[in-house]
């Protein structure tokens, strides 16, 4: 295994977890902004949900 391979594997380890955590965070934000159906959230986000093409009500 060359040094480049070792460095690449280290990089993979260092990036995979943060990227997954950030992607999960992104999905959570999209769920709250675009999909959660509590009355208050739905009312507040109504126009934005329609304009952004999310299924609304």
């Amino acid at each position, binding site marked *: 295994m060359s040094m480049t391979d070792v460095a690449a594997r280290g990089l993979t380890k260092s990036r995979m977890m943060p*990227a997954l955590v950030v992607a999960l965070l992104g999905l959570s934000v999209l769920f709250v902004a675009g999909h959660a159906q509590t009355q208050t959230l739905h009312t507040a986000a109504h126009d934005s949900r329609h304009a952004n093409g999310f*299924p609304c009500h």
Partner: protein
Amino acid sequence: MFQRLLTCALLAGAGAGLVAAILQLWFVQPVLLHAELYEQGTLTHFGPDAVSAHPELGRLDPVRDGLSVFFSMLTYTGFALLLVAAMALAEERGAAIDGRKGLVWGLAGFAVLHLAPAFSLAPEVPGAAAADVTQRQIWWFATVSAAAVAAGLIAFGKHWIAWVAAVILILAPHAIGAPEPDHFAGPTPPELSALFAARSLGVALAGWLVLGLLAGHVWSRDAADAPE
């Protein structure tokens, strides 16, 4: 790395979300307000009298429109978190990321998050007839997920089988079909529905191009400042 991802996503998401929100207030909100007059029964399509296509619409409403701006910025921050995570993973596999290439990422994001679901579940104007919201949300998430995997296969697949799989993933949700209402009973005129869907998609394309450009630019600039 975690901090760099978050910083890039927050900057790009807030910027693109603000641009999208302004375009929405300008071009989409008047159509929405117009449609709500039919949804609430103030205007009646095919009533006894001809209805003007240019009614008096509400002006800017600071609270309502402020919330819309906030939620569109939040929505684009969500998009940005997904985009930046994908960019970081692609870069470590050899992809170069900068502002110009970010535009292509933005186009892909638009196709995945907006065009793919809209092909069978067009952006809904208020008052449009629609199936159960939970079923539509499940279909939306499934379609977006399939399109995201397909985009990855098209961009980074190394064998023609990857492209075949991508085409199948893109087509499958539409072949299966989106949840549809049993009856078409929406009170909103089709002219408004069509305009709403077209403008919603057009603004989304603009928003995603700005998002890709900003995310790519900030990401490459941060790389120069602090490698990891």
